[in-house]
């Protein structure tokens, strides 16, 4: 096992990793930017090292600063969290070249799954139905030709990153040409990488993903699926497990196909396979996320498996130690992403001082957040303030507890998207489990909120 772990991330995930390390008896070191000097993770840290200024490119995205910090602090492993360098195969390779361990898939595994088109082909060969898509687009002419081949509507997606940035659904060549420029500049601004590709757009689709854990020796299990269909502009807002849109048989077929394919394809460590589910219940593989995900807690609530400690154990070379029959999923869990966004003004990101913060409580309620009263939310990073995760023995109970928890939670001094969550948990479509990924955008989030508050 590792003797000391460097945590190369911030916010709630830095805390989450810190907790996992503490529980395992591994000392941890928090690498932080100047803007995060007063963060909760730094306050709680065994040790903390300032790696650079606020600008991510010179701190959380600087491979050399992070690696140097790990060496200086005497760490033998680096946990990258999510986002930033978490899926960067070159970084993973560099970590290994310096004799340290990257907590995630090994560099060659990240490299094998780095290309979206390549991964679709690879997993397609191992039995997964995959979404139609293009390779990386060379230019507009190439994009037009590929869109023609795939057939409109298509979704433009950036090769790097997530969070909905640089993504647009288009229905015609004209829309495609207009959107390409916007997507390129959005992707460049967000990820410093403007490569784009196309994916077939399915009307009224749902987003369902499968959590997998695979050790170095080819033992793997799935830990069920998560339904992430409540999205705003392709950004997940609420996730739940199990998926309310699938039957037991459908879930089993999906999860088994997913774990079989990734094990055969040589995947290693934690991973999430994302699928689109169409109106008729057909599923199509879209991409794999080679890291811990924001929404991992709902899977933990159902399975009792601590995914972060599993990730650390497997990176250290330990065998999985259990098989699929040992994994049982109980009840229903929902996660609400609490973001510093002004729902009244196009969800504009907010920064400022959190004057008072009171997390909710009660049975089945878990709040993963780095907030504290008096904390100043810096303007440089993503707007997520925390995740409210609620478990119930069934969906009905989980929803009832969610309504109560959302009423209890207090975040004052900064504008949040809590009004949207409070509206959602009373909305018929959500209660019926019939949300599709573009529902909020089609209705318009503002209109949705107005209607909800008027009722």
């Amino acid at each position: 096992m590792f003797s000391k772990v460097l945590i190369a991330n911030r916010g709630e995930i830095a805390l989450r990793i810190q907790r996992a390390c503490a529980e395992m008896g591994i000392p941890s070191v928090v690498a932080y930017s100047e803007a995060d000097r007063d963060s909760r993770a730094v306050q709680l840290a065994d040790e903390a090292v300032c790696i650079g200024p606020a600008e991510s490119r010179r701190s959380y995205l600087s491979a050399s600063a992070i690696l140097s910090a790990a060496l200086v602090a005497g760490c033998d492993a680096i946990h990258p969290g999510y986002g930033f360098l978490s899926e960067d195969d070159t970084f993973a390779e560099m970590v290994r070249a310096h004799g340290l361990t990257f907590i995630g898939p090994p560099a060659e595994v990240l490299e094998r799954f780095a290309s979206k088109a390549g991964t679709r082909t690879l997993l397609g060969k191992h039995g997964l139905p995959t979404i139609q898509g293009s390779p990386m687009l060379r230019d507009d002419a190439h994009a037009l030709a590929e869109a023609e081949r795939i057939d409109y509507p298509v979704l433009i997606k950036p090769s790097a990153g997530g969070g909905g940035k640089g993504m647009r659904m288009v229905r015609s060549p004209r829309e495609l040409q207009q959107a390409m420029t916007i997507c390129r500049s959005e992707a460049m601004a967000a990820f410093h990488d403007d490569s784009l590709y196309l994916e077939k757009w399915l009307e009224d689709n749902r987003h369902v993903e499968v959590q997998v854990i695979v050790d170095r020796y080819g033992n793997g299990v799935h830990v069920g699926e998560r339904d992430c269909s409540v999205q705003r502009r392709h950004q997940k807002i609420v996730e739940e497990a199990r998926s309310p849109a699938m039957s037991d048989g459908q879930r089993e077929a999906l999860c088994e196909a997913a774990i079989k394919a990734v094990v055969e394809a040589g995947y290693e460590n934690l991973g999430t396979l994302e699928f689109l589910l169409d109106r008729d219940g057909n599923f199509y593989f879209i991409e794999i996320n080679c890291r811990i995900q924001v929404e991992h807690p709902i899977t933990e609530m159902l399975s009792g498996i601590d995914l972060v400690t599993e990730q650390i154990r497997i990176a250290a070379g330990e065998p999985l130690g259990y098989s699929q029959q040992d994994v049982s999923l109980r009840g229903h869990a929902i996660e609400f992403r609490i973001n510093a966004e002004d729902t009244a003004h196009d969800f504009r990101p907010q920064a400022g001082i959190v004057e008072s913060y009171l997390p909710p409580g009660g049975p089945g309620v878990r709040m993963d957040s780095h907030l504290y009263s008096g904390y100043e939310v810096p303007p440089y990073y993503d707007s997520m303030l925390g995740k409210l995760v609620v478990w119930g023995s069934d969906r009905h109970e989980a929803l009832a507890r969610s309504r109560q928890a959302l009423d209890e939670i207090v975040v004052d001094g900064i504008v949040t998207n809590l009004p949207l969550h409070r509206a959602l948990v009373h909305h018929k479509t959500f209660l019926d489990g019939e949300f599709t990924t573009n529902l909020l955008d089609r209705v318009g989030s503002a209109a949705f909120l107005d209607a909800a508050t008027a009722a």
Partner: protein
Amino acid sequence: MSDEMDEPAQDGRATIARLTAHVVPDLIARLTKSELGELEVRENGWRVRLRKPVAEAAAPATTPTASTRTPHPVMAPGAHAGHSGVGAPRDSGRGVVASPAVGYFSPRKGIEIGGALRSGDLLGHVDVLGVRHEVVSPVNGALRAFEVESGQAVEYGQPIARVEAEA
């Protein structure tokens, strides 16, 4: 960008040919498209390490060569409350020189406490994975003290030296 090879093994010529023809170009391509400053690959007793200078624009206090040294480097990026307690080091006539990076500090050979300095003069280096980041005087004046020992690990923004500006 510079590349270097060491630990020569027997049968060198063929290996060198292969490295130059395939490995090095591939590494250069990867290094260029990445944000990394350094990349190292080991194979059969050979080690290829590529380094690129830290982006000048992105790192005002760090300059790759003496000839392109920034005339007025940003002073004390970390000289705020938490560390130094000095609100406005420039005004106090005493400059706190902060570390431009996380790594190991070494003072310039022959530098003396009390010695006269011109703005931009080299005080030492912070070694980040073998890449040396320069630590320079922010003002004309005299070196009052080093806050860290030679070879000591420093974090970004940590006070490294104090320089008193000339009156």
